[in-house]
C-alpha cells in the first residue's frame, strides 16, 4: 500500500512553492518515463506587485507622466522581509522537501533518489538566486482511473493560491491551406473533486470562425453532437443533466464568445470536447495573419442591461446582473490550465518570414511552401491572443478565386486586391476625429499605447486637415466644441489635452459614438472617426445599430489596443463604418502601426464598389454591400456559382473623384484553387449578414432564416447550439456541483478596474 502510494506520487500533484527573487514561475513539471522530474522555469511572464525588482522594471517602462505618479507597493526592505517570512512558512508546512537552485529559463532534471531521499539536496549550479522548495503531498483523489499526463502544477509566488480547475488543457491544431484555416480545438476536462460536477467554460474563438463539428470524447468513445435550435438544445441538455447522463452543450454568446457546458463528470474521470471550425485568414500588406484568441476580456455593461457579458471574481454568482458571467481568477491566484498551439502552413507557394510578436514560437520548415509552427512550452498561459504572421513569395495573393462543389451548389470565395498603380493616389483632406476609450479597462499600458498612437497621428496631420479629440468612459467630453485646423499651435493644444486624459469608470461607448457622429459634417473633407479601444463592452448590438443609424458620409476606422481585444466589435465597426481596422499589442510599436494604418485611411484605393460578373452567374453574394478597397488589404467575397466558365469580372468603383474599373481574370475550374471549407465560410458570411441586420432591425423572419441556414449548413449561430448526450449509461447520484471555470484577466488588464467582486 505504501509502495502504491509512493508510486502514485509520480503521477500526482506536486506542489511547488517558488521563492523567486525575480518574477516568473515554474511553467511546467513533467515526469519522464524513467521517473525523473523535469522542471522548466519560465522567463518573466507576469507582473507581481509583491516583487521589488518587477516594480522597478515596470517603473522604467512607464512614460514620464505616469512614472512621476507611480509608487511600488513596498519598499525594498519590506520586500526582503516578506521573502524571509515566506521561506519560514514554507519550511513549516513541508512534509518532505528538496531545495534546489535553478537557472531562469532552464531545465533541471532531478533523479528519483535525490528527490525522495534527501530532504536538502544541493545543486551547485550557478543560480540567479532562485530557490525552489519541492513538496511531496499525497494525492487528493485516489483512483486507478485517475492519471494525469503530468503532475498538476501549481505555480505559487509568495501569497498566491492554487486554484484547481476542471479544465486541464486546451490544444489547438490548425491546418492552413491557401487562405483558409481548418482548426481543431480540444478541451480536456476532468474532475479532481470527490463529487460529480458540471464544468462551464466561457471562451473565445475568432469572430469569423465557422464552427461545424462538435464531438464529446469519453475514453475511447466519440459521440458526435448535433446542431439544434438553441432553446430546444438547452432543454434536452438540462433534462439529460438532471437524469444523470453525461452531456455537453456548446452555445454562442457572441460571434466571438462561446459557452461550453459539460455535465455529470464523475470524480476522477475525464471528458474531452473537440470543436472544429473554418477560419479565413486576414491578408494585409503582403502578410497572412492567423489569430487565435485565448481569453475573453472583462466586459462593461451599461446600467440597466441584463443581456450583456458579466465580469465577476471566481466563484461569484449573480453579482453582475447579466445572463452570462465570465469568472476571473483573483489577484494572487493562478491555475494549471494551459494551451498548446500547432499550426501547419501549406501555402502552395514559398513561405517567407514566419513570426509572432505575441508569443515565442518554434518554426520547422518542412519544405519551401510548408512550415509547422509550435508554441513554445514556456509561453502557454492562455491570457492573450496568439498572432502568427507570414509572407508568401511575391507581393500579391496568387489565387484570386477558390471554389467548392457541394452536393447541390457550387460555392466560391474571391479575394479582391487593389492593383499597385493605385498606391500613389492624391491624398484627400481629412476631418480626423480621434475617439479615445478612457474606461477602467484601459488603465495602465493600454491607455499609454492609445495615447502614443494618437500622438503619432496628430504629428502626421496635414495642414489641410482638421481634427477633434473625444474621450469617453462613463460619459464623453472633447477638446473643443468643433474640429480645429491642424496647425502647429492647435496640434500642441491637442497633445496637451491628450496628456491630461486618464482612465477610470465604465465604457459608455454609445456616448463616444454620438459625440463623434452627431455634429455637422465638413463636406470639403472626408470625416474619419478613429476609435482607439479594447472593445470591452457587452452591448455590441446597440453600438452597431447606432453606427448604422448615424454614419452618413463618415468612415469609421477602429484601432484595437491591447493583447486580447474584442475583435468582433472592432471588425464590425469598421465593416459597418466602411473603414478598416488595425491592432496594436501592448508590446508592439504604436508608431509603426499608426503609420501603416493612417496611410491606409488616407488612401482608399477604390470606394463605392460594384462588381460586373461578366459571364459568371452568381447568387447569394456576401457581403451584400462591398466595403471600400484599400491598398494592401484585400476584400473577401463569397457566393454561389451557377456556372463554372472561365471569365473576366469587372470591379467598378470610384478612385479619388473619378469613376474607374479593374478587370480580373477568374477560372473556377482551376484545380489548385479548391477548399472544402468554402461552403461553411459562405454560410458563416450569410449568417453574419443576417445577424447584422437583426442587430438594428430584429424580426422573427430574420431569426428563422438564421436558424434554417445554421441547421442546413451545420453551423453554430446565436440561435442554435451543438448538443451531445451519452444515453448509454447513467451516472450515479444527482447532477453534482456546477463549477464555472475561471480564467486569467488578459495580459495588461487590471482586475481591480474591470471585474465585479
Amino acid at each position, binding site marked *: 500500500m505504501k509502495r502504491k502510494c509512493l508510486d502514485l506520487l509520480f503521477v500526482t500533484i506536486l506542489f511547488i512553492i517558488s521563492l523567486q527573487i525575480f518574477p516568473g514561475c515554474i511553467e511546467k513539471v513533467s515526469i519522464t518515463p524513467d521517473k525523473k522530474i523535469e522542471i522548466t522555469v519560465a522567463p518573466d511572464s507576469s507582473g507581481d506587485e509583491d516583487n521589488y525588482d518587477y516594480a522597478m522594471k515596470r517603473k522604467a517602462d512607464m512614460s514620464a507622466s505616469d512614472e512621476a505618479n507611480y509608487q511600488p507597493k513596498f519598499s525594498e526592505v519590506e520586500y526582503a522581509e516578506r521573502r524571509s517570512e515566506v521561506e519560514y512558512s514554507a519550511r513549516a508546512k513541508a512534509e518532505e522537501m528538496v531545495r534546489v537552485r535553478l537557472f531562469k529559463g532552464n531545465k533541471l532534471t532531478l533523479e528519483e533518489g535525490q528527490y525522495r531521499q534527501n530532504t536538502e539536496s544541493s545543486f551547485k549550479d550557478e543560480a540567479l538566486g532562485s530557490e525552489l522548495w519541492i513538496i511531496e503531498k499525497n494525492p487528493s483523489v485516489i483512483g486507478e482511473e485517475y492519471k494525469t499526463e503530468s503532475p498538476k502544477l501549481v505555480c505559487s509566488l509568495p501569497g498566491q493560491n492554487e486554484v484547481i480547475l476542471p479544465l486541464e488543457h486546451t490544444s489547438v491544431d490548425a491546418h492552413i491551406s491557401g487562405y483558409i484555416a481548418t482548426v481543431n480545438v480540444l478541451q480536456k476536462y476532468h474532475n479532481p473533486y470527490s463529487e460529480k460536477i458540471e464544468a462551464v467554460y466561457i471562451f473565445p474563438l475568432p469572430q469569423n470562425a465557422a464552427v461545424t463539428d462538435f464531438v464529446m470524447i469519453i475514453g*475511447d468513445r466519440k459521440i458526435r453532437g448535433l446542431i439544434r*435550435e438553441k432553446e430546444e438544445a438547452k432543454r434536452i441538455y438540462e433534462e*439529460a443533466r438532471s437524469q444523470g447522463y453525461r452531456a455537453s452543450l456548446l452555445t454562442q454568446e457572441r460571434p466571438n464568445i462561446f459557452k461550453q457546458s459539460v455535465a455529470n463528470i464523475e470524480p476522477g474521470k475525464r471528458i474531452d470536447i473537440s470543436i472544429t471550425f473554418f477560419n479565413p485568414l486576414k491578408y494585409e500588406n503582403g502578410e497572412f495573419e492567423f489569430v487565435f484568441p485565448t481569453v475573453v476580456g472583462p466586459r462593461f455593461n451599461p446600467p440597466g442591461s441584463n443581456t450583456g457579458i458579466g465580469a465577476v471574481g471566481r466563484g461569484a454568482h449573480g453579482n453582475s446582473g447579466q445572463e452570462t458571467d465570465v469568472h476571473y481568477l483573483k489577484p494572487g491566484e493562478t491555475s494549471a490550465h494551459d494551451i498548446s498551439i500547432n499550426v501547419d502552413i501549406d501555402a502552395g507557394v514559398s513561405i517567407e518570414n514566419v513570426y509572432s510578436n505575441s508569443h515565442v514560437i518554434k518554426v520547422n520548415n518542412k519544405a519551401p511552401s510548408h512550415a509547422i509552427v509550435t508554441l513554445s512550452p514556456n509561453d502557454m498561459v492562455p491570457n492573450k491572443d496568439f498572432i502568427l504572421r507570414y509572407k508568401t513569395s511575391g507581393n500579391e495573393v496568387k489565387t484570386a478565386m477558390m471554389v467548392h462543389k457541394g452536393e447541390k451548389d457550387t460555392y466560391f470565395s474571391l479575394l479582391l486586391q487593389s492593383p499597385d498603380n493605385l498606391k500613389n493616389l492624391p491624398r484627400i483632406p481629412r476631418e480626423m476625429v480621434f475617439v479615445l476609450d478612457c474606461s477602467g479597462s484601459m488603465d495602465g499600458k493600454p491607455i499609454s499605447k492609445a495615447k502614443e498612437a494618437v500622438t503619432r497621428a496628430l504629428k502626421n496631420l496635414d495642414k489641410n486637415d482638421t481634427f477633434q479629440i473625444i474621450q469617453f468612459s462613463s460619459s464623453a467630453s472633447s477638446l473643443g466644441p468643433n474640429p480645429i485646423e491642424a496647425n502647429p499651435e492647435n496640434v500642441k493644444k491637442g497633445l496637451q489635452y491628450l496628456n491630461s486624459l486618464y482612465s477610470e469608470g465604465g465604457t459608455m461607448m454609445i456616448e463616444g459614438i454620438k459625440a463623434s457622429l452627431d455634429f455637422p459634417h465638413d463636406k470639403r473633407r472626408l470625416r474619419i472617426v478613429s476609435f482607439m479601444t479594447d472593445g470591452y463592452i457587452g452591448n455590441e448590438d446597440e453600438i452597431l445599430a447606432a453606427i448604422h443609424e448615424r454614419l452618413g458620409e463618415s468612415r469609421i476606422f477602429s484601432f484595437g489596443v491591447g493583447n486580447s481585444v474584442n475583435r468582433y466589435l472592432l471588425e464590425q465597426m469598421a465593416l459597418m463604418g466602411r473603414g478598416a481596422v488595425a491592432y496594436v499589442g501592448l508590446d508592439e510599436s504604436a508608431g509603426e502601426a499608426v503609420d501603416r494604418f493612417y496611410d491606409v485611411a488616407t488612401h482608399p484605393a477604390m470606394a463605392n464598389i460594384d462588381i460586373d460578373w461578366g459571364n459568371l452567374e452568381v447568387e447569394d453574394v456576401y457581403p451584400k454591400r462591398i466595403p471600400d478597397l484599400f491598398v494592401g488589404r484585400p476584400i473577401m467575397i463569397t457566393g454561389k456559382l451557377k456556372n463554372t466558365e472561365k471569365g473576366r469580372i469587372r470591379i467598378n468603383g470610384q478612385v479619388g473623384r473619378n469613376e474607374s474599373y479593374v478587370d480580373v481574370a477568374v477560372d473556377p475550374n482551376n484545380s489548385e484553387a479548391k477548399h472544402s471549407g468554402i461552403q461553411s465560410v459562405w454560410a458563416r458570411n450569410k449568417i453574419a449578414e443576417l445577424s447584422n441586420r437583426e442587430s438594428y432591425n430584429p424580426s422573427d423572419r430574420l431569426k428563422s432564416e438564421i436558424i434554417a441556414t445554421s441547421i*442546413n449548413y451545420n453551423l453554430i449561430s446565436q440561435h442554435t447550439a451543438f448538443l451531445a448526450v451519452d444515453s448509454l449509461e447513467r451516472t450515479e447520484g444527482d447532477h453534482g456541483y456546477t463549477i464555472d471555470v475561471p480564467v486569467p484577466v488578459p495580459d495588461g488588464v487590471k482586475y481591480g478596474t474591470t471585474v465585479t467582486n
Partner: protein
Amino acid sequence: MMRIFLLIISLNFIISSSAFAESPEEADCKGKISFSTAEVYVDSNKDALTAYQIDIRYDKEKIRIVGLEGGADGFNKPPFYDQAGLEGGHIIIAAFVSDDIQAKKGGSRVARLHLQTTGCPPFELKTEPMAAAKPGGKSIPIKVKIDINNRQSFDNR
C-alpha cells in the same frame, strides 16, 4: 322513449370511457422523457463492407436524436450526418472505413444513435439503405437492423 335514449347514451359513455381509459403503465410513461440508445447493424452478406449510407426516419414527437456514435472495428468513428431533415424526424447517416483491411463481411455494428424519447413505447426507427460499397468502391446490397435498448427490431422499409 326519452329514458331509453338517455340510458343508451349513458351506457355508450361508460363503455367508451373504459375503452380509452389509460392503463397504469401508460399513465406512468405518458409525457415521460427518457434517454436510450439504438444500435445500427448492417448485414453485407458475403461482401466486405467499406462504406454505407442509411436513411432513418422516426416520429419526431416521440424521438429526438441527441448524439451519434461509431460502431465497432472499422466503423468506430462517429458517422457523418445530413441534418437537413432533422427537425422533421429524418436523418441520413454515413461512414466509411479508413482502411479496407478493416472491412468485414456479414454483420457489422456500424453506429449507435443516442436518443431522447418522450412518452410510452414502442419507439420505432425505420431504416432504408441508400448506398453501400465494398473494397474497390463497387456498390453492394445490404440489410439494416436497428436494436433499441436490446429490443430487437427488424425494420427495413
